[in-house]
Every structure is written in C-alpha cells, then in structure tokens.
C-alpha cells in the first residue's frame, strides 16, 4: 500500500487484494489522515488490485460517509475488470465517481 498526500487529497495505491482482512488496516490508516485534518479528499487507485469483495465496498462507502459532511470527496481510478464488476453489481457508481 502506498499513501501519497498532495495538498488535501490523499491518493492510496491499493494492494493486490482488498478483503475483510486488510480492510481494517487500510481504514485505520486513511482515517488517520482524515481525522488529523490532512486529507479532505480520497482517491483509491486500484491499478494493482485484482481481488475485491464486499468488505472493499465497506471501505470505500465508509470513507464517503466520513468525508461527505466535511465537504470532501471519494473517487476511484484504474479499476481492473474484476474490481470493476464488483463496483457495477454493487451500484457503487451511483455514489462514487471515477477519477479520470
């Protein structure tokens, strides 16, 4: 995992797998940036990720719920086909935008 802070936007280059096991670790780390006031926007970069299950949806949605009241945004980018499918089926694109 790689966390890159540019201004108040945190870019996270996600690992290969996003499941319940690593979700907890990622959430804690991201929320650290948010609660300390360093990050107002979060971008998940899934370029290396080829597995994500419903726990990943929880991670993305959870950050969205946290940042929305603060006027921040959550975006995703570089989704490979397996992760894209999870996003489509879950309806996550109704809420989360793709960064282009």
């Amino acid at each position, binding site marked *: 995992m790689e966390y890159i802070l540019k201004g108040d936007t945190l870019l996270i280059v996600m690992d290969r797998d996003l*499941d319940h096991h690593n979700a907890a670790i990622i959430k804690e780390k991201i929320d650290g940036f948010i609660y300390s006031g360093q990050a107002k926007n979060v971008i998940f970069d899934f370029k290396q990720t080829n597995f994500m299950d419903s*726990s990943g949806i929880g991670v993305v949605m959870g950050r969205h719920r946290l940042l929305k009241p603060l006027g921040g945004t959550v975006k995703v980018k570089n989704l490979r086909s397996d992760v894209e499918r999870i996003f489509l089926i*879950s309806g996550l694109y109704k809420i989360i935008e793709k960064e282009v």
Partner: protein
Amino acid sequence: MKKRMYLEIDSISENENFARVTVAAFVSRLNPTLEEIADIKTAVSEAVTNAIVHGYDGKEGIVYITCEIEENEVHITIEDKGIGIENVDKAREPLYTTKPDDERSGMGFVFMEVFMDSLTVESKISEGTIIRMSKKIGE
C-alpha cells in the same frame, strides 16, 4: 468420478485469502475462465468472511470448507459452528447488515447469489450456519 477436498481453518481473517485461493486452485482442473475463477473466489471470500465476522463474531472457532467437483459442476460448502443467523431471509436482502458500525456493506449474500448458480443457507441459532453453493464451469 467425484473429486473432493476438505479444509479446516481457524476463524481468523488472514485465512480468508488462503481459503479462496485454495478453492480456486482445486477448481482450476476444470479449466475455468478468469471470470469464473473470480466469481468463485468472491463467493468463497464472502462466505468465509461471514463465518468469521458473524458466525464466530471475531472469536475463536473453526470454519469447515468442502469442495466437490462432479463432471463440470463445483459444489462448495462453508460451515461454521457459531451463533447462527436469526432471520436468513432478511440476511440475504441486499444492504441488510447487523454490523453497520463495522462498515459491513450488506452485499455478501448478494455476491454469492450473483456469482454462483445456486445458493442455500441453513442456519440454527447457537448451532451454526452452512452455506451451500454450486456453479457449472464452462457454460
């Protein structure tokens, strides 16, 4: 001829990856497509995560996984001897979760249903839950 494998794992989250990769490796002899493998991995991951998070509620326990191949069909069961599900119909509804504070999305059963051909859930309070899922490969 039926081919069978059986796996017992501790109910700890680092085993979620191990479980789905092991099932995927077992199924690979049917020459599934990448998409079929992704389907199975996701469904197994959801069921095993449910057993750990809900069945055992984060406590110690054992998750029992069997996988059977019969011609071109895969049958997977994932069983826990945990707390059981009070209302299975409700649990299967999209977005329903008993743990919203843990950011559970309530999509686990939806994915199992979407990615597999069939899914049955058998559960008894204080006794545990058995998930049975099947999928035909190459259809």
